[in-house]
Every structure is written in structure tokens, then in C-alpha cells.
């Protein structure tokens, strides 16, 4: 009975990690890719760690697993938020099917300033960026 529970949790966790890999490969945009990997990766790791705790069934393992899951739940959204913010500031273009970009009229890319009112249109620089080419000269 316990084995069945452990293997079910492990299979679900591994399947979610597989879905995270599919998502990062197939999504059209960095922001959509992050929304796939952050959630699926976190949930998959949580299920696998729960299965490990049930398998070992020791007090030390339970505390360690709870610590890891708590830390992952704490840091994974923060990491995704920071990377998304850095990517938007860096000028990575959105997917062409995006229908709403709330920051577009309130954000000036030259000095990273945010305004609650609208910025005049001549100061808006729409993020236009070529793909990274590592053959260019370092500055």
C-alpha cells in the first residue's frame, strides 16, 4: 500500500518535470516559458520529495524534506519574477500574439523609470532586440 503511494507520487512528479521540459521547449516566448517551468518544476520537485520522505520514514528525513519544500516554495516565484523583470528591462520582445502589455506606456527603457501617468510617445522605446550573437565584440 505504501509502495503504491510512493510510486504514484514519484510518477506524478516525474511527469510534471517532463511537462516542464516540454513547456520550455515549445512555448513561444520567454515569459510563457517561465510560467510553464516555474509552476511545473516546483510542483514536480515537491511531489518527488514527498515520496522520498514517505519512503525513508525517518524524523531527520521529514525535517529535511519540509525544509527543502518550504525553501523552494519561497524562492521559485521570487527567482521567476526577478528573471522576468530583467528580461523585460533587457528588451526581450514579447510574443507577437500578445494582446496586452500594461508596462508599455508607463516604462521608459533608457533609464528604467516607471511612471503612473503616461509617458509621451516620443520617449517610448519599444523593446527591439536582436537575438544574442556571441561573435560581437565585448564592450
Amino acid at each position, binding site marked *: 500500500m505504501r*509502495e503504491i503511494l*510512493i*510510486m504514484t507520487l*514519484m*510518477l506524478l*512528479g*516525474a*511527469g510534471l*518535470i*517532463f*511537462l*516542464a*521540459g*516540454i513547456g*520550455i*521547449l515549445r512555448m513561444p516566448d*520567454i515569459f510563457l*516559458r*517561465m510560467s510553464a*517551468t516555474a509552476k511545473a*518544476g*516546483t510542483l*514536480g*520537485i515537491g511531489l*518527488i*520529495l514527498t*515520496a*522520498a520522505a514517505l*519512503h*525513508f520514514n*525517518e524524523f*531527520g*528525513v521529514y525535517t*529535511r*524534506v519540509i*525544509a*527543502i519544500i518550504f*525553501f*523552494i516554495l519561497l*524562492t521559485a516565484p*521570487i*527567482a521567476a519574477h*526577478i*528573471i522576468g*523583470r*530583467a*528580461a523585460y*528591462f*533587457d*528588451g*526581450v520582445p514579447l510574443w507577437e500574439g500578445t494582446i496586452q502589455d500594461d508596462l508599455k506606456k508607463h516604462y521608459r527603457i533608457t533609464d*528604467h523609470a516607471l511612471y503612473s501617468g503616461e509617458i509621451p510617445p516620443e520617449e517610448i522605446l519599444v523593446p527591439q*532586440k536582436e*537575438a*544574442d550573437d556571441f561573435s560581437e565584440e565585448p564592450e
Partner: protein
Amino acid sequence: MDILWNIILLFIALGYIGAFIRLLRGPYLPDRVVALDLISVIAMGFIVVYAVRFNQVNFLDVAIILTLITFLGTVAFAYYLERRI
């Protein structure tokens, strides 16, 4: 039971391959950072599965350290990305 373990390891390996292809293809630097983040998460899952499969409790400590270092690395990459414009 062995078939189930093989299926679990196959799923993890396929996720690893997907993240690695995205790491190679890019096209932007933040894409690669996200792929590295996912690769370390998948490596942590693989370590835990290995610990359960071969009854090695001590490998869970490796997972703890990997979690800490992954978060620090991601924050450092993001800081570098914001400052390089």
C-alpha cells in the same frame, strides 16, 4: 517495479533534454538563464529519485545545497542582466 523506475527516469531524462536544447538554442540570454534554472531543478529531482532508488539518505543533503546555490545563481544572473544595458 523496475519498469516503473525506468519510466520515472525516462521522464526526468526527457525533461533534461528539453531544457538542454533550450539552453543551446537561446535565442536570448534570459532564455538560457531560465533553462539553466530548470536544469538544476531537474538535477535535484534526479538526485532525490536516485536516493530513494538506492536507499541513500545522505544524498538529500546534496539536494538542499543545490537548492540554495540555484537561487543565488539565478539572482546573480538577473542582477547582471539588469545592469548590462
